Structure formats: C-alpha cells, structure tokens
C-alpha cells in the first residue's frame, strides 16, 4: 500500500509543484491575459475543428484528448532532443491528466456551468448543463444559444440578463430564475453570471453557473441565504475553473502552445481548488490521498502536507470504512464515471479532532493509464442539517400544535392562483368519511362535499384568501360520506414563498358538529324560555353572576316603570330598597351555591315608590342568575288588614275582659253598698221602730201619743231610704217617664251631691226610644258625669242629646282637667271609658272621646235607633 501511494503521488506531486509555481507567477488578479489566451485558444480550436471534421470528434473530450496524447508517437532523435521530447511528453501527459482531472471536476459539479460569448452563444457547458439542454456533447450546442433550447420568453429573459451583464460589466449574483427541464417541468435555478474580460479588460463574454433550487425553494429562507453566499463564492471560483478549462481545451488543440497555457491553467485550477469551500480530495486506487485542497483542510482540520499520502480512512468514521471501501471498489469497476455519493444513505466525515459531521459528496473516477484516480467533492452540511432539523422540528411543532386544535389539515396547492391538487391529512376520514386517497384521486371532492348552501361562502372565503387578505375562520357544513351533515370550523392559513407569492394554503378543520348541535338546542331552549318568560305573570329578571341585569320580561317593565334600555344598565342591587339591602343579606352568595333563595323585599320603582315583592332567586346552569318577582302588594294589604282585625279582636277581648272584671267589681261594690245600707240604715231604723213600739205598751195618754209619733217618724225615714235605694239600683222613672225626665231627675240629685251644675240641651226627643237605647244613653251620661265629678275639677258640665241620622247622640262635655284618651283606653282603667264604649258598641253604635290634658273632655256616643229591628228579625228567623 505504501508502494502504491508513493508511486501514485509521483506525477501529481510534480504537477502540483508546477501548478503552484504557475499560480505564484500569475498572481491572484491576473485573469486578463489568461482570458486573452483562452480566447485565442478558442479561436484556434474552432479553426481546427472546422478543418478536422466532425467524424473525428470524440465522444468525450477528455477521452479524445487521451487518445490523441497516446496517438502521438515519439519521433525526434537525438539524446538531448529525445530527452527533451521525453520530458515534454511526460509534461504533456501530466498536463493532460491534470486537465482531464479538472474537466472531470467541472463535469461532476451538479450545478450547471457554462461560458458564453458576447452574443450569448454557448462556448462551454459542463455535463450537467448539457443534460439540461438535452444534448450529449459540447459540439451539439456550438454556436447555439438559449433560444434554441428554451421557450422564447425564458430565453429572451436570459438574453436580456446576460446582455446587461456584458454591457454593464456588473455580475448578476445568485438570483433566481425559472427554466424548463427535459421533462417539460418548470424548475428553478439560482444563477450567477459574471462577465469575462480579455487582457485589456474588454468584456468578451460571460460565465454562468446555475444551481437547481426547485427542491429547496420552499425551504427556509435562512438556509437559502446561507447557501446563496456559498453558491456565489463557488460560482466565482467555478467561473475561474471554467475559464481554466477553456484554456485547457485550447491546449489540446495546439500542444505546442499548450504547454505554457497548460501550466498556467494548472496553476489556476490548483488555485481554484484551494479557493473552493468544498473539500476536493483525490485518491488513488489504494485510497491514498493525492490531492487535498484548502477547503478540505478547513473541513477536516488536517493540513494538506500531513494528509497527502495517507489513507482516506483517516477521514471516514470507523464504522463506515469497510462499506466505503466496497463502494469505491464497486464504483471503480462499474460503468458509471461519476455519481453522487450517499444518494440513499447519509454519509459522514471525520475531522482530525475525531468529531463526525454529515456530508454531501460526489465522486468521479478518472483512468489515467493503469491508474484510476477518484476525486471526491465534499461539502460539510452540518449547518444545513442543523437548519433542516430545526425546520423539521418547527414544522412538526406546527403540525402538532395545529393538530391539537384541529381534527385534520388539508392543503390546497395552487398554480397561477388556481387550485390544482389537495392533500388531506389522514385524520380527515374521521370527520368526512373520505380518506386522504379519496381526496387525492378526486381534486374536486373537497369542494363537492361542502353543504350546497354553504358553498358560496366557502368560495367567497377562498377568493378573499387568494387576494392575500387575512381571512377569519369560517364555520360551515359538510356532507359526510354517510350522508349526514357535519359542522366544521375551517381556518385558512396562507403559505407564501419568499417572494410573497401564494403557493398553497392550509385549511385547519375542526369538527364542531357537537357544539353546533348544542348551540342549536340551546337556542331552541332559549326561545322556549323566552316565550315562557314573556307569558309569565310574574316578573323575571336575568342577571350575570355579579347581579348586572341582562334581560327582563315585559311584566318587569310594568312592575317597575323602567323601560328595557334603562333596566339593562342597572344591577339588581339598584332595585332593592336600601333598608332591605341593609337588613337582609343580598342572598347572592347563597344563590351562587346553587340554592334557590326565597325572600321578601321591597323594590324601588323608577318613580321612587316602593313595591313589595316575593323574590325567588336561583342560578341557571349557564351561571346566570334568575330572579322571579311576584308583586305582593295585595297580599301585604290583606296581611295588614288581617293583622289589624286580629289586633282589633284582641283589643276587644281585652276590653271585654276588663269590662267583665269591672262588672264584677261594680256588682260587688253595689252589693256591698246595698248590704251596708240595709244593715246600717234600714236595719237601724227598723230596730229603733221595734223598740219604740215595744215601749208603747207601757205608755198611755200623751206619752203614748208621743211614742206613736216617734214611730211614725221612723217609718217615714225608712220609706225614704228604701225609695232612694231602689232608685239607685234602677230608676223606674226611665221606664215610666223616659230619658229626659230621668236625666233631669239624675242631674238634680247629681248637682245636689256634687255641686256641679249640669247644663242640659236636647232636641228632637219628643218620643220614646227603645228601652236599651234609653238605658244606654242614661248610663253613659251617668258614668260620664261621675267621671267629671271625680277627675275634671270643674263646677259645670254640659250634656247634649240630639237625633241625627237615625241615631241618638249623647254628648257630655266639660272644660276640666282632660286626659290622654289613648292611654286611658289602653289602660282600661276604672274610668269606665271602656264600659261606656262597650255599651255603645252593643247597640251597634260607637263612643268617641275627644280630650287633651288641660283642655277638657268631650264624649260623644252615637246610638243607632234601628238596631233592635235587626235583632228582632234575627230572632224571628
């Protein structure tokens, strides 16, 4: 292996030295004379070609060159000359080999490389470009231009661009343009075109390099930019490479002149090799490294000096070494001269540091006599991989994110603004019943499945979308494969390319059928609820959880006097009377726990008046609060009336009780009085009379007479006493003579006993009244006068009797001490007020008391005269 390596490095080493030497001589910026030389060579080549005829044209230039080199016999004699000849042939051979090597490199470039004259006619094209043009050989395109191969408008554009470069001398770098490939497909390339100048600086043509970016075009902008720069640099170098290649071609035509040119070209090419960012590595059959350019140094971290002569294995991770070697051997024996490496699998390189990196490489082989040299052009794609991975991850995240809120995604691919094809994610079957394949097979299925009535809106949405507007999600119906109707939410997302052109759009489909059905049900139930609300005789208010009023039925407006607009800005709290808010908890918290709260409170109407309501508050399922309000004004009124009646009955009972008590007291007092009268007065007199009469037995004559007179006197006194007693119990006069005589009699006695003068006025009392009426009137007057005597501290009183409205009115008035009627009546004291009132009430009449402390008293009893008739009728029935 070492032998091989040593042997194989011999020629390249020599070449290398020459190239380096040439490079040094030419310097970096010495393209000018070189170009002149190249043009010169081209002319000669053309002339030569014209002379030699097409039949001698080799299939491949390099093979032809090789053949010719081999066909050149050594003919000159003479040692020196022969020596020189040998040397020269060796040089020529080496140069030819080098040239072939470089040509191989160019042809192996996947990018299209071409040179054109000032009229944009092809001068040189690499194999990739020839393939695109659909021809096999360089000869097939000679003198032709893009107009011969591309549609007119494309060719015209190319021509215009190129003429601009030629006219202005300014290169066009890394711009994108379309072309049509052999299959007729539209593809995109990133193109760089730079002017070619002769040694005088005159522009004599241009060099172009195009990279097919159709596949990458939709990739991330970052990646593209990163590449662009790289492409541009490669292009620049390649341009030089192309020029050098041209030079080489010329050298082939004229060997004599070629030597120098070849040397120069070698130097250029070697320089180009080193300038290229790509790693360019050539190995011999034993995988000994013979060329290792600067790009390779940068990529692998080895210096050329330390790696040349070493095995390629150093640059390959251990696990790939065996496979790699096999591939190389297969490739060496195979019919293919160049191919891209790792077409099916990723390939990796190994840096000096031992770190592996992903790489993209192409390999070509070149047979030089018994030698086969392999050249690998390799790119470190670590950064691209990273970006790709990041992109992929980002894309996955996007899909995942979208998937989480979406049932499936479809993509509509556009061409010239028209949908040409759709792709549907597999989940579509769950929603639509159709599979991805169904959609793929039928480009219009996606639209046909839209519910017919909804198609116009979807069309409209799509149209709006394609104008580049931001379009909101659309909810529409689709018809499932099984014929049922589904609701979906369709959220369109535009996909634009880096020029802002719409390439496709995604539709994010969410199945919202359930929600729609629920909404529909809710709407129906809402409608039902609303009708119920309006029909209700009670007021109904709906509020949110804070009590803000959301809705109210018509009844509420009637109850409260607000109209709808006024009510909807209020909170329920605003309606509740302040005192009720303070006294009772609002109840909201309790309602929030889900309980129904029944509470009575007063609400404020718009006009400020209050209305008592019974409120039934509850929380609805959707969290809103519902309050049902019942106007309980009437009930409250009835309650108040009931309460009043109850109090009246209660007071009546109390008065009755007090009266009964008093009646018993009065009765007892009366009896005590009568008993005392009988015992003390009547009894004494009778005893005296008895003694007097007993004594009469012992008297006679005048003494007897005196005794009898004494007895007579005692009897008269007795009669008076008994009479008085009888009258006090019940004046018979009331029955015999009626009210006025009895009252007159009573006043007389009253005045005699109390010294109070009674001023008596009456009118309309000519007839007699019912005994009850007369008795009651008499007793009330008697009682009232007794009270005056006891409390009023006056010496005059007035009693009035009159008839009015079929009632006998009795009024007793004084201007004495007076009292507080309410307090007196409440106390139900012995004043007899309650007794008088009861007496009046028994006849269906009433007693009114007007009195104020220090302002006198006026009692008026109104005693209906017709009352007894009712009683009699009652008795009869």
């Amino acid at each position, binding site marked *: 292996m070492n032998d091989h390596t040593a042997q194989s490095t011999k020629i390249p080493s020599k070449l290398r030295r020459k190239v380096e030497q040439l490079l040094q001589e030419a310097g970096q910026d010495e393209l000018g004379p070189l170009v002149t030389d190249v043009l010169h060579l081209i002319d000669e080549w053309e002339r030569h070609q014209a002379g030699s005829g097409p039949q001698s044209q080799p299939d491949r230039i390099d093979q032809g060159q090789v053949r010719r080199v081999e066909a050149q016999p050594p003919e000159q004699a003479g040692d020196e000359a022969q020596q020189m000849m040998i040397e020269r042939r060796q040089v020529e051979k080496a140069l030819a080999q080098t040239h072939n090597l470089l040509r191989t490199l160019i042809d192996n470039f996947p990018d299209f490389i071409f040179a054109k004259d000032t009229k944009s006619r092809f001068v040189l094209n690499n194999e990739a470009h020839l393939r695109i043009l659909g021809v096999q050989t360089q000869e097939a395109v000679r003198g032709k231009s893009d107009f011969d191969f591309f549609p007119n408008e494309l060719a015209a554009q190319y021509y215009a661009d190129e003429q601009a470069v030629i006219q202005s001398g300014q290169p066009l770098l890394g711009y994108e343009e379309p072309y049509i490939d052999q299959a007729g497909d539209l593809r995109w390339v990133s193109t760089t075109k730079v002017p070619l100048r002769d040694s005088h600086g005159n522009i004599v043509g241009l060099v172009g390099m195009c990279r097919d970016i159709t596949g990458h075009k939709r990739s991330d902008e970052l990646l593209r930019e990163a590449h662009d720069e790289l492409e541009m640099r490669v292009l620049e170098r390649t341009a030089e490479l192309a020029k050098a290649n041209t030079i080489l071609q010329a050298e082939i035509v004229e060997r004599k002149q070629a030597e120098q040119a070849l040397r120069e070209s070698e130097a250029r090419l070697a320089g180009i090799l080193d300038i290229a960012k790509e790693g360019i590595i050539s190995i011999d059959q034993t995988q000994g490294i013979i060329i290792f350019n600067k790009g390779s140094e940068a990529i692998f971290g080895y210096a050329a000096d330390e790696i040349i002569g070493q095995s390629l294995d150093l640059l390959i991770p251990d696990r790939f070494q065996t496979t790699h070697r096999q591939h190389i051997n297969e490739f060496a024996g195979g019919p293919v001269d160049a191919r891209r490496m790792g077409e099916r699998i990723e390939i990796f390189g190994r840096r000096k540091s031992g770190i592996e990196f992903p790489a993209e490489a192409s390999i070509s082989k070149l047979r030089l006599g018994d030698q086969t040299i392999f050249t690998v052009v390799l790119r470190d794609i670590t950064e691209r991989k990273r970006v790709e991975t990041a992109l992929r991850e980002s894309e996955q995240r996007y899909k995942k994110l979208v998937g989480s809120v979406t049932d499936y995604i479809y993509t509509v691919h556009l061409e010239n603004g028209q949908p040409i094809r759709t792709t549907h994610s597999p989940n579509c079957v769950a929603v639509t019943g159709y599979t991805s394949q169904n959609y793929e097979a039928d480009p219009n299925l996606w639209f046909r499945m839209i519910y017919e009535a909804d198609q116009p809106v979807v069309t409209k949405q799509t149209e709006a979308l394609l104008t580049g507007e931001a379009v909101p999600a659309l909810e529409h119906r689709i018809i499932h494969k099984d014929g049922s109707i589904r609701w979906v939410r369709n959220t369109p997302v535009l996909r634009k390319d880096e020029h802002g052109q719409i390439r496709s759009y995604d539709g994010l489909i969410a199945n919202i059928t359930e929600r729609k059905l629920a909404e529909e049900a809710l709407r129906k139930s809402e409608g039902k609820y609303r009708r119920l609300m309006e029909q209700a005789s009670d007021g109904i208010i709906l509020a949110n959880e804070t009590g803000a009023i959301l809705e109210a039925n018509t009844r509420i407006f009637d109850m409260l006097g607000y109209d709808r607009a006024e009510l909807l800005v209020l909170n329920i709290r605003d309606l509740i009377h302040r005192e009720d808010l303070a006294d009772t908890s609002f109840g909201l918290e309790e309602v929030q726990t889900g309980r129904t709260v029944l509470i009575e409170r007063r609400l404020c109407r718009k006009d400020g008046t209050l209305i008592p309501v019974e409120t039934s508050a509850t929380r609805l399922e959707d969290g809103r609060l519902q309050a049902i309000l019942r106007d309980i004004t009437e009930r409250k009124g009835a309650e108040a009336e009931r309460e009043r009646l109850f109090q009246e009955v209660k007071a009546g009972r109390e008065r009755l009780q007090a009266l009964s008590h008093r009646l018993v007291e009065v009765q007892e007092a009366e009896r005590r009085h009568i008993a005392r009268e009988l015992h003390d007065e009547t009894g004494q007199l009778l005893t005296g009379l008895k003694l007097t009469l007993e004594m009469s037995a012992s008297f006679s004559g005048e003494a007897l007479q005196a005794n009898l007179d004494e007895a007579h006197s005692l009897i*008269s006194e007795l*009669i*008076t006493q008994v*009479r008085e007693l*009888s*009258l006090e119990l019940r004046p*018979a*006069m009331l029955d*015999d*003579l009626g009210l*006025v*005589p*009895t009252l*007159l*009699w009573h006043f007389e006695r009253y005045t005699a006993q109390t010294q109070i003068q009674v001023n*008596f*006025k*009456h*009118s*309309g*009392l*000519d007839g007699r009244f019912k005994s009850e009426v007369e008795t009651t009137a008499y007793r009330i007057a008697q009682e009232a006068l007794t009270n005056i005597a006891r409390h009023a501290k006056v010496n005059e009183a007035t009693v*009035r*009797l*009159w008839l*009015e*409205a079929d009632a006998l*009115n009795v*009024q007793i*008035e004084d201007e004495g001490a007076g009292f507080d009627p309410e307090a007196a009546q409440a106390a139900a004291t012995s004043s007899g007020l309650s007794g008088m009132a009861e007496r009046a009430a028994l006849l269906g009449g009433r007693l*009114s008391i*007007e009195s104020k402390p220090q302002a006198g008293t*006026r009692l*008026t009893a109104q005693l209906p005269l017709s009352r007894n008739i009712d009683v009699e009728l009652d008795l009869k029935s």
Partner: protein
Amino acid sequence: MSEKQATITILLADDHHVVRQGLRTLLEAQPNFSVLGEAADGLEVADLVEALQPNVLIVDLMMPGLNGLDITEQVKQRSPETQVIILSMYANEGYVIEAFEKGALGYVVKDSSAADLVQAVRQAHAHRRYLSPPLSDLKLDAYLEKAKAAKADDYETLTAREREVLHLVAEGYTSAEIAERLVISPRTVETHRSNLMRKLDLNSQTELVRYALRRGIVPLEE
C-alpha cells in the same frame, strides 16, 4: 155642711195589702168617704172603675201589670167621671207632669201625712188639682222650664275633626289639600264634609261659607 152629706166613693188600687188596709182605715175615718173596693193588679183596675164608677180612684204609681200612669190614661178614657189621684213614692216633677198629662188631678207622695191624702180626695172630687208637699206648682213650672226642649247649638255637635274640616273648607281648600294637611284620605275628608253639612243643615258651598262668616269662623277681611 152640704159637703158633708155628699158621700165620696173611692176605689183603692195598690199591690200591697198592708198599704191598702192602712189607707182604707185612714179614709173610712172620714164621715162622707166610702171605699167601694180595692184592686191589687194594675190590669183589673180599669175594669173595676168601670164597674163601680167611683168618684175617686187612688192608684199607686207602681203597680204590677200596668203602672199608675197608664191606668190613669185608661180610666180617663173609659170612665171620665172618675177622678184619679196618684200615690207615689217619688216627689218627682217629671212624674207629676206625666200624671197630670194622663189626666190625674192629684199627686200625693207616700210619705205625706194622712191629711194630705184626704185633702187630695176632696180637691179631686171638686175637680181641683192637688199636689202634696214638697211638690208645688212653682216647682212644676221650674221643672217644665228645665225640661223644655232646648236645641243644642249645631256647631257644638260637630266633632273636632268636622270642625277642622269646616274651617279649612271655608278657607277655600280643596278636599285633596285638606287631606294632605290632615294626613287623611280625600275620601275621609269628603265624608266629614258631608256629615258636617248635614248637621249644620247646609246644602251648598255658598251656604257653608255664609255660615262660617256668620259664626266668625272666617274673619270678614278685605
């Protein structure tokens, strides 16, 4: 002496046997007095008077069945020639007046002396009125004066509320304004108003104002 010869026939009506015996003893002690009979029940008195036609009926005021006043009335209708003397426990003018109105000619209080009763019988027989002491015509006049129907001032029969309403109506307030001032319902005001107008016998607003002016309720200002 012609008087002596003329016998005066008497019927005694009293529900007490003892009293009747005492009176009979007392009356028969008089030479020309003849007690024709006695009655103990108020209801039989008029029949007996009609049957016996006595010159004088002495009847107790308090009789079971029918009292002395009513008996007097019956007797004077059926036997106008019989003069009636009321015997009573009560020296009360009201009774006396009632008795005289019914047609009695004498009223004798029971604790009067026997002489008073004899006098009363003789006077009655002579168609003259008799009042036993302490009663007298003077007292009767005084009583009649006292008992005369004295119409009370209508204004005084008004209740305090009715007076308030009267004042306010006279001053020109409407029912609604009065209701507001008195803190009662307008309907109640209307009731008071119609009551007071009836009591004062007023039939229109004009009469009401005129009454108020006359009474000085509303001063006669400019």
